């Protein structure tokens, strides 16, 4: 039996204050004005046959199957393109309509290969269903003559298998255009068209190219929209239709898409984005939709292992032995070097429940506050900056709010690559007419791509964000564009006055700042005016804002700008950090920073500590513990010797790799809990196998504070979910943790955290997802924050003085290197590198402007050495006009690239967030890998040799 399908209403829902009542087959139905007759019929459980209509796409009216009769109207209008009118009397089933529909269907079927029994869509084919529904009994035209399938041999040759995840079979195509429309409306890439006409009609990626050679980004929207087997997941072709589905949440970026994992036994056949997913509304990207194969990759390590020294071979051991060894080592180190000599690092890839347990383990079992998370290296400035100004360390909006924005400012973010599903939603709004300001050193896709054109691209020099944000504020203040009513009512007036006087200073004008930003003052002025006067203005920003020596200052500057222009506290506006990883928001919420208990409450607050003492039986320490970089420093000083690191690869992702490696080498017990023998695990003494998001229960919290369930789709390969492992370790250390299920952990979190009081698995099942704060005041959550007043009461303006980074160019290091990510790969690539996603991007490359390349004699594809004050690495060059002269760019998805060998120890003044985005470098043509890369290769080979033999062979 194949899975029951969701109801398809045929056309999208419409919102309208006006309601229309009509009669369909004698049944009265009331729907919002603007609704199609087709949708209205489905609302009263009357299904009208359809092929080209589906409720994720605008009506198209091409299949002619959905014709109806309407009293008083001539002919047979298509119900998908006919809007409801008051008093309309619609008949959906009459002998005449049945005749017409059979006739239409007969034509379709006369042009379709009748291989249903062996077709991959068998059991899940809309064409099959509709043929049944209309009662087609014969095809009078025969199957001869020109058609789409008779040239089967020719068309078999045309079958396109180039995409690793889906196939295109033109002989099954009914030319309904759903794929083309999905690529345009849903994804916004416009990679598909129908080429030719009549029997020559084909789905054409690009200019009749292969899918992989076209602009297709493999988001899967076309495959999902296809009513037949023309576009079909290879997973389904291989395994057949799934037998059950489990609704869960994607483990990649901070969009937090909801997916139905379709499962057969313990095999995930495919991941289908859920239509009722609050963040994604049925859309997906190449990572979440297709790149889940890493979960069953042979590189997975599924047995616990221990070793005395990192020179020793790994010993596979039982869970108990591994846990007891780790616990005894931690106890030994603490006994010898004191309570503070060990700590833990958790990850934005862990569930809320897991992160909560790790910080509880550190605070209650280790007895210190030495816990940190990878948000340290990405969005810690967001936490700080937004808490200081608005009162809460989180984005202010729900994603859907973008659909009400009139001006969108994207700063230091690349949504179409980093947050693709939200990027698509933003592009949809831009196509509807919202205007766009891009603040980025590179010409990202949003600056100009089909049907998208930024009104202003402020192509600033890396490191000059504060100069830019302050000069934008200067224009708004000095040209009288401040929303004074809003500021007076909602913000601290004194702080505003101070800020106003500061930004109005001539040295903060765009003209004065031009020397730092490199952006013509007139362009900055025009952008500021548009932002302040163009209607609802929303700011979206990413790591290009935070990962700077003044990251927190820029976040503060963004909040200032939103407050001064009154763009906060309603739909269409706000301050929106695009979180890098699936659970950055959640891991921060869960108290994984060394200075904060869950719910962003400082450890120095006695009342909060007392609350936790009550619940935990142990009082947390009142002094903040070590941040990640402090842990490394302490390790080098010999005072920090034990680390429990769950789900985070610090060696690859933290800056100045050689420094991180030296710190780990200095530790006596490094415990790594992960899916793979990652770069950090190569320095570990205990390896605890982790479980992927498909193997456990829990919750993730996305960039819009949306808490969504993660549900187990297959059993953990190593037998234990990560939360169980942390409990075991805690128990072995003598601090009992006894949870039966992750829901117990969430109940404890909810009990202890005011913004989570109303959250439970039961409520999540009921509502689908919940945006915190969720408590007595907001029982269904809070999509938009700061509506009547700011969380901190009155909004607070803060001064944003521009202080150039110490990392400056010189004659030795004349270029600025900045880093970012690409669509197909994710973060350190541990997951995506182990999937066919590498077919799009199989190595990190250095993007360089033609002028810089030419003066160095560098051609596209040449090997180039990149040297900074911290180190050296070698990559291949891509000569690209997207760059500005003087700036080079790379991604950091592959460990051997050593992108972080060159990044430095500089960091944000407030939070220590590393300055990944600015490194002064020199680039030269070279012929061999850097010394570090050669050492890396040798060391990696050595470490793989230390794995048990059976495992090595598997790898």
């Amino acid at each position, binding site marked *: 039996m194949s899975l029951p399908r969701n109801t398809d209403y045929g056309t999208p829902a419409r919102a309208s204050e006006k309601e229309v009542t009509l009669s369909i087959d004698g049944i009265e139905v009331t729907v919002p004005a603007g609704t199609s007759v087709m949708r209205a019929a489905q609302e009263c459980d009357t299904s009208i046959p359809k092929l080209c209509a589906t409720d994720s796409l605008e009506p198209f009216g091409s299949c002619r199957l959905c014709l109806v009769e309407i009293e008083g109207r001539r002919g047979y209008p298509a119900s998908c393109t006919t809007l409801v009118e008051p008093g309309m009397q619609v008949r959906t089933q009459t002998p005449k309509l049945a005749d017409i529909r059979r006739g239409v269907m007969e034509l379709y079927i006369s042009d379709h290969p009748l291989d249903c029994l062996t077709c991959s869509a068998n059991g899940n084919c809309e064409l099959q269903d509709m043929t049944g529904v209309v009662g087609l009994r014969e095809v009078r035209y025969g199957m001869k003559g020109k058609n789409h399938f008779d040239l089967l041999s020719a068309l078999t040759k045309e079958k396109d298998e180039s995409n690793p995840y889906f196939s295109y079979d033109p002989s099954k195509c009914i030319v309904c255009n759903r794929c083309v429309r999905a690529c345009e409306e849903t994804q916004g*890439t*416009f*990679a*598909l*068209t*129908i*080429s*030719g*006409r009549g029997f020559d009609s084909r789905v*054409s*990626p*690009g*200019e*009749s190219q292969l899918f992989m050679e*076209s*602009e297709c980004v493999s988001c899967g929207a076309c495959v999902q929209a296809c009513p037949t087997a023309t576009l079909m997941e290879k997973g389904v072709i291989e395994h057949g239709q799934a037998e059950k589905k489990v609704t869960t949440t994607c483990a990649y970026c901070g969009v937090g898409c909801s997916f139905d994992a379709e499962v057969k036994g313990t095999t995930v056949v495919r991941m289908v984005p859920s239509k009722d997913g609050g963040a994604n509304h049925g859309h997906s990207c190449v990572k979440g939709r297709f790149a889940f194969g890493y979960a069953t990759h042979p590189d997975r390590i599924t047995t616990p292992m221990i070793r005395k020294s990192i020179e020793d071979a790994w010993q596979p051991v039982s869970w108990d032995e591994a846990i007891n060894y780790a616990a005894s080592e931690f106890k030994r180190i603490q006994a010898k070097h004191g309570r503070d000599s060990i700590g833990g690092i958790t990850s934005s890839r862990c569930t809320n429940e897991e992160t909560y347990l790790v910080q509880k383990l550190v605070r209650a079992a280790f007895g210190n506050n030495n816990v940190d998370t990878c948000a340290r290296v990405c969005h810690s400035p967001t936490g700080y900056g937004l808490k200081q100004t608005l009162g809460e360390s989180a984005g202010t909006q729900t994603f859907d709010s973008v659909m009400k924005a009139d001006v969108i400012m994207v700063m230091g973010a690349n949504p179409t690559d980093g947050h693709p599903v939200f990027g698509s939603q933003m592009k949809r709004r831009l196509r509807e007419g919202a205007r766009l300001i891009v603040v980025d050193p590179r010409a990202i896709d949003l600056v*100009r*791509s*089909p*049907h*998208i*054109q930024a009104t202003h691209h402020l192509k600033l020099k890396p490191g000059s964000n504060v100069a830019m944000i302050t000069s934008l504020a200067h224009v708004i203040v000095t040209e009288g564009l401040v929303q004074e009513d809003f500021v007076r009512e909602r913000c601290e007036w004194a702080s505003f006055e101070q800020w106003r006087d500061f930004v109005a200073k001539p040295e903060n004008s765009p003209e004065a700042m031009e020397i730092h930003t490199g952006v013509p003052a007139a362009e900055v002025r025009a952008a500021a005016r548009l932002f302040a006067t163009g209607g609802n203005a929303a700011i979206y920003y990413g790591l290009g804002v935070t990962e700077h020596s003044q990251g927190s200052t820029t976040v503060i500057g963004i909040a200032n700008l939103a407050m001064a222009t009154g763009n906060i506290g309603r739909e269409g506006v706000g301050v929106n950090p695009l979180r890098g990883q699936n659970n950055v928001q959640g891991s921060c919420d869960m108290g994984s920073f060394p200075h904060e208990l869950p719910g962003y409450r400082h450890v120095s607050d006695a009342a909060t500590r007392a609350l936790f003492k009550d619940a935990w039986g142990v009082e947390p320490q009142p002094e903040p513990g070590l941040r990640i970089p402090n842990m490394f420093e302490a390790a080098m000083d010999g005072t920090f010797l034990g680390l429990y690191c769950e789900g985070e690869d610090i060696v690859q992702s933290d800056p100045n790799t050689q420094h991180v490696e030296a710190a780990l080498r200095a530790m006596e017990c490094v415990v790594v809990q992960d899916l793979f023998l990652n770069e950090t695990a190569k320095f570990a003494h205990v390896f605890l196998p982790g479980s992927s998001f498909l193997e456990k229960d829990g919750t993730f919290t996305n960039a819009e504070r949306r808490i969504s369930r993660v549900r187990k789709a297959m059993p953990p390969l190593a037998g234990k979910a990560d939360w169980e492992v942390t409990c075991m370790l805690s128990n072995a250390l003598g601090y009992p943790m006894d949870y039966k299920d992750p829901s117990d952990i969430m109940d404890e979190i909810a009990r202890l955290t005011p913004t989570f009081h109303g959250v439970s698995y039961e409520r999540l099942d009921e509502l689908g997802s919940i945006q915190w704060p969720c408590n007595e005041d907001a029982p269904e959550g809070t999509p938009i924050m700061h509506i009547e007043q700011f969380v901190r009461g009155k909004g607070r303006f803060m001064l944003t003085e521009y202080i150039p980074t110490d990392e400056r160019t010189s004659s030795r290091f004349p270029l600025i290197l900045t880093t970012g990510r690409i669509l197909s790969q994710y973060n350190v690539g541990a997951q995506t590198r182990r999937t066919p996603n590498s077919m799009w991007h199989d190595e990190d490359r250095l993007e360089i402007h033609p002028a810089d390349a030419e003066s160095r004699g560098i051609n596209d594809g040449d090997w180039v050495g990149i040297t900074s004050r911290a180190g050296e690495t070698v990559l291949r060059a891509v000569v690209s006009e997207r760059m500005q002269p003087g700036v080079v760019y790379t991604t950091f998805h592959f460990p051997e690239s050593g992108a972080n060998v060159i990044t430095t120890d500089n960091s944000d003044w407030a939070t220590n967030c590393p300055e990944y985005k600015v490194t002064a470098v020199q680039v030269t043509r070279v012929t061999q890998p850097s010394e570090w890369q050669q050492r890396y290769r040798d060391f990696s080979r050595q470490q793989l040799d230390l794995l048990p033999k059976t495992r090595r062979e598997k790898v």
Partner: protein
Amino acid sequence: MSSHHPASAADGLRLQSVVDAHASLPGALLPMLHAIQDEFGHVPDQAVPVIARSLNLSRAEVHGVITFYHHFRSHAPGRHVVQVCRAEACQAVGAVALEAHAKKCLGIDFHETTADGAVTLEAVYCLGNCAVGPSLRIDDDIVGRVTPARFDEIIAELRAEVTA
């Protein structure tokens, strides 16, 4: 139009100027495609990305439009384009036979070019010359009352003209 070839570089400039001249028209794509075909005799594949960039469309969209209309060709036509009217009035006075004759005599189907490169055969649906059908259009000239014999004469003339 590869940039390595001097004549092609000139073509590139010519293409860009045609594209630029039409870029600001409302609904610019079709007038632009017509202008390109008028200029080059066809719409070369290399023009697609240039048009797409100019109008901020995707290459697929431009390709879809070009391939939808039989009028637009992606390869250079023969030295002469002969269009046979297939509309009802002409069909009523012998166009079907004329079409068959034309294909047989030239040895090609519609949208094809004779091996000697002299003639490209196309179908057309009404030239507004219904009173005197069957009608042909030869390049920009319209000819009425075309019998198979007259067709042969016309083709012979066209061939003679180019070999002369």
